[in-house]
């Protein structure tokens, strides 16, 4: 699965580095001009926002950008250690008004949400993790076609970190299983599932995760779960599935377990 990581410091002049890398990544993977263009604008907006608003001190801060091609989607995750800000729940006003009355607050996020097929956010420790998702195939990406469940993928040290948020029920279990199976088919052996944003998981959800876990084990790989909230933990306990998965309290511990498993 093609992926690339770029690290920059929080200065506006650094944005060009990310957009250059993104463009090169998109070209070498045959992404259309539209996909590269729209993702460039969205990444530019998000990083500009971080640089302008995220840090309260004048120290230098690192911003990490990870690009991943996941099946027919381009995922770009942007991680910064600034103040918590969730662009997903921010309600950007629709732009209107003449030259003199036009207010521009929120225009950047309006562009991002209009250009992307999906945007996922979670706060982890002291960092914001934002994933921009753009479908790479045709205009099939129609608004309203989105499910209540969101899935994002990034890769770190050969470990695929998959975030699942929303409701994981029978209506979506098959799709999730297919997506994870695609990852495995593409050579992924170690998957860390981030369930911070998960609101609910049904037995169909459990079974699909179990199937993935077994698929990975059959290939001498490993599935580790972390970020399980109290409500979801209760579902794991009540259903009896808790004992069937490797569950870690934190991302770092989860990554540790997976690194060990490779040895």
């Amino acid at each position, binding site marked *: 699965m093609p992926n690339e990581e770029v690290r920059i410091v929080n200065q506006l002049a650094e944005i060009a580095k990310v957009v250059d890398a993104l463009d090169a990544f998109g070209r070498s993977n045959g992404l259309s001009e539209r996909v590269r263009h729209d993702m460039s604008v969205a990444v530019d907006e998000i990083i500009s926002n971080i640089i302008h608003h995220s840090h309260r001190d004048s120290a230098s801060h690192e911003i990490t950008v990870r690009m991943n091609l996941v099946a027919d989607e381009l995922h770009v995750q942007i991680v910064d250690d600034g103040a918590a800000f969730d662009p997903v729940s921010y309600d950007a006003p629709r732009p209107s008004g003449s030259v*003199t009355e036009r207010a521009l607050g929120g225009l950047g996020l309006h562009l991002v949400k209009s250009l992307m097929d999906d945007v996922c956010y979670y706060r982890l420790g002291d960092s914001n993790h934002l994933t921009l998702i753009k479908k790479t195939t045709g205009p099939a990406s129609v608004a309203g076609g989105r499910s209540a469940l969101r899935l994002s993928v990034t890769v770190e040290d050969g470990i695929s970190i998959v975030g699942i948020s929303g409701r994981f029920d029978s209506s979506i279990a098959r799709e999730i299983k297919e997506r994870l199976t695609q990852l495995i088919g593409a050579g992924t052996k170690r998957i860390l599932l981030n369930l911070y944003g998960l609101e609910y998981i049904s037995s169909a959800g459990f079974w699909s995760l179990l199937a993935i876990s077994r698929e990975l084990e059959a290939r001498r790989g490993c599935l580790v779960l972390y970020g399980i909230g109290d409500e979801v933990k209760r579902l794991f306990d009540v259903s009896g599935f808790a004992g069937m998965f490797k569950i870690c309290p934190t991302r770092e511990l989860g990554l540790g377990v997976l690194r060990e498993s490779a040895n």
Partner: protein
Amino acid sequence: MEITEIQSGTVTAVAVKGRIDGATAGPLRDRLSKLIASGLSRLVVDFREVAYISSAGFRTLLIIAKQSEDAAGHLALCGISSEVRRLFEIAAFTDLFLILPSREEAIAELAKSGGS
């Protein structure tokens, strides 16, 4: 981003090449402001080689439009690609500006306009 000025009679065309982003929107604004302040009241901004424009760029355009209005000047945009056009539409900026297909048409249009 590169900015090139081309004087054509009473009209000044400003060709922008590259990305109008968070880093380059400021310099572009300064450059255009300076032109307006120096009395050049008929400006064409040529987008033919603009890769994209972010919200910082739209902010710059709005500021320049206000300055141009205050100076009783005339402003036109041209050469906007289909990708950039989509951004203008999403930002609801298409109705705020006089937009013409080519630089030649934009220059001809502004040359006709009244005033100095």
